[in-house]
């Protein structure tokens, strides 16, 4: 009896001594920092991004994690405040020592934290559509960029409604640079800009703007409005019976204005999105279903939520192939050029030159009763501009942002 106990104990001890370090190693989690605006002016569009990350992490962990390692989320609420981004970016990289950070909604916040990611040589995902041009090896961008959204949207609008264009845009780097893209693409397609107005963030009264638009008589209006205050424009333009077609790279797909305002204030709004919950494919429907199973009260699943979800899977693919979370190893994998994930929208692939992502672009049209029609779909639209302009992250890392008027320096 005594012998048996001893042998059993020693067997157990042997077992533990073998399994111990192995188990500890297997369970060493991969730390994923999440810096998103869960309160403040942008919260409406970004809480879904956090949920997307949570959903993907739950699925991946249930299926055994990344190479057997579970993912641990370390999330901070950045409160729609750029200084919070800097503060929390330092915290996740220095104190929490995360392997990767998913961060940022507004372009101002991304530019606020990007130097810190460079300083600590971290890896950050920006899962948001934006004005394009960030050529930075520490950044992977899963959101859509102007060459994906505007070079599809604007020619369609100009063919359908006419060549006179009026832009109203949020007055910060996103709106200014996006408006520059609009100007350039309208010009390339033989159109004319009849007006342009930049609206400070937080402005909510648009009476005079509406009248300026009426005075300029455009064929359609490009709305690049950001934040909840500015989205009051639609209600006020609708009430004043402005009734012009609208085009946007950022509205509907982000702030689901068609759900929030009474019809028909957004009728004839066209937005190029890489995903919204109305996308009518079996993959999308399954995605919406499992989302609502986990978050039954989610008001809307926007494109940035899907980007964030897909980004976790893209990261998983890269780490599994690199067998490491080290930045150099991951960049080596990206350089192979075939990191692709079958996202709910369709296939997303990471472009090695710019570390941006190819997308299926859906033209979403808001109808009179605010349901969504998709008159056109473009498959696997590449984020080509940076690569063509001379950004090649497989060769060098300038950590800079370029625009059409200030492209990468010629070699």
């Amino acid at each position: 009896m005594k012998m048996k106990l001893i042998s059993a104990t020693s067997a157990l001890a042997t077992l533990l001594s073998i399994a111990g370090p192995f188990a500890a190693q297997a369970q060493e989690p991969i730390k994923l920092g999440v810096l998103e605006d869960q309160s403040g002016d942008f919260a409406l569009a970004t809480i879904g991004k956090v949920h997307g990350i949570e959903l993907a992490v739950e699925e991946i962990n249930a299926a055994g994690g990344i190479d057997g390692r579970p993912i641990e989320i370390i999330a901070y609420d950045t409160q729609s405040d750029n200084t919070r981004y800097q503060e929390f970016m330092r915290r996740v990289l220095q104190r929490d020592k995360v392997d990767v950070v998913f961060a940022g909604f507004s372009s101002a916040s991304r530019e606020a934290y990007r130097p810190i990611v460079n300083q600590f040589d971290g890896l950050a995902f920006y899962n948001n559509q934006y004005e394009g041009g960030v050529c930075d090896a520490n950044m992977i961008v899963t959101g859509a960029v102007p060459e994906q959204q505007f070079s599809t949207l604007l020619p369609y609008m100009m063919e359908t409604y006419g060549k006179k264009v009026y832009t109203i845009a949020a007055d910060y780097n996103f709106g200014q640079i996006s408006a520059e893209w609009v100007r350039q693409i309208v010009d390339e397609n033989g159109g004319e800009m009849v007006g342009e107005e930049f609206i400070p963030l937080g402005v909510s009264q648009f009476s005079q703007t509406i009248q300026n638009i009426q005075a300029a008589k455009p064929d359609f209006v490009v709305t690049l409005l950001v934040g909840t205050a500015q989205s009051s424009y639609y209600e006020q333009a609708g009430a004043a019976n402005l009734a012009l077609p609208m085009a946007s790279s950022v509205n509907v797909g982000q702030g689901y204005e068609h759900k929030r305002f009474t019809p028909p204030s957004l009728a004839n709004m066209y937005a190029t999105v890489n995903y919204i919950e109305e996308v009518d494919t079996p993959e999308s429907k399954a995605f919406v279903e499992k989302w609502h199973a986990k978050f039954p009260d989610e008001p809307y699943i926007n494109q940035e939520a899907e980007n964030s979800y897909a980004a976790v899977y893209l990261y998983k693919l890269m780490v599994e192939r690199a067998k490491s979370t080290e930045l150099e190893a991951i960049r080596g994998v990206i350089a192979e050029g075939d990191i692709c994930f079958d996202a709910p929208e369709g296939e997303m692939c990471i472009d090695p030159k710019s570390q941006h992502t190819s997308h299926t672009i859906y033209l979403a049209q808001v109808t009179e009763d605010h349901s969504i029609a998709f008159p056109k779909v473009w498959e696997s639209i590449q984020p080509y501009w940076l690569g063509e302009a001379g950004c090649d992250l497989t060769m060098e890392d300038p950590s800079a942002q370029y625009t059409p008027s200030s492209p990468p320096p010629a070699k």
Partner: protein
Amino acid sequence: MEFLYSIFSFLYQFGDAFAFLVLSSCGLAVIFGMMGVINLAHGEFILCGAYVSTSAAHMGLPLPLAIAAGSIAAGIAGMIVELAVIRPLYARPLDTIVATWGISMIVTQGTLIVLGTTMAGSGTPFGSFSVGAYSYSIYRVVLMVMAVVTLAALWLMFTKTRFGILARATIQVPHVAEALGVNTNLIYSLTFGLGAALAGLAGGLYAPTMTLVPTMGASFMVEAFVTVVVGGADIFLGTAPAAVVLGLIKAALTSWKGQFAGQIGLLVAVIIVIRILPRGISGKILKERA
């Protein structure tokens, strides 16, 4: 004809800016201008009015009653805040900044947590009309009328009613009023409630035209504080003329160079006014009269 159309359009834009300045600042003029409480939770009383009136409208109440319900709810909330937080702070105006700022943050975040990121709007009623090449929202004309009605009603209340006279006496010399048998605590509470109710009225009136989110109060704050600071302590000699002047500046600059210029114009105007009229327009008028 073209000229008349532009005149009308400018008047409409001026009226629109004027209405927004008056309605967003009336409540603050009572609480900050008269009572001296630097109320950073002003936007949250507006939020309260907007959310309550929109919920009431969703429940089927006609819009005027819904707006009244929003205003009353904000007024009651104001009296509770006054009783619980503001009352010990009348002698410490700077501390009211911190206290009301805290209330503002708690309410904004609490609304976000309890009611979610947004509330569906009730839609702007009444449709639109056209003058010349431009079309206008009828509801915004209603807002202009309401701004004037609100000013008139306040004037009547503060000059012709017993409550108005007691309120002014209490705020001017509280211990004398008290010695004469006025229940000053009650008057303070009612006056603060009135200010909050006016903020709630602004929220209820503007709710159909705006996006309803927990941070919506913030978009009224700049205009409200600028108007009250330019106007000074008196609502009729201060807030009303300040709203006229600022409305002209804002409408002219916005039509000339866009929203950005309009915002800058407002802020430059307040800097200039503080420099040459430290007590605002009404301070200047009252001093000359005295």
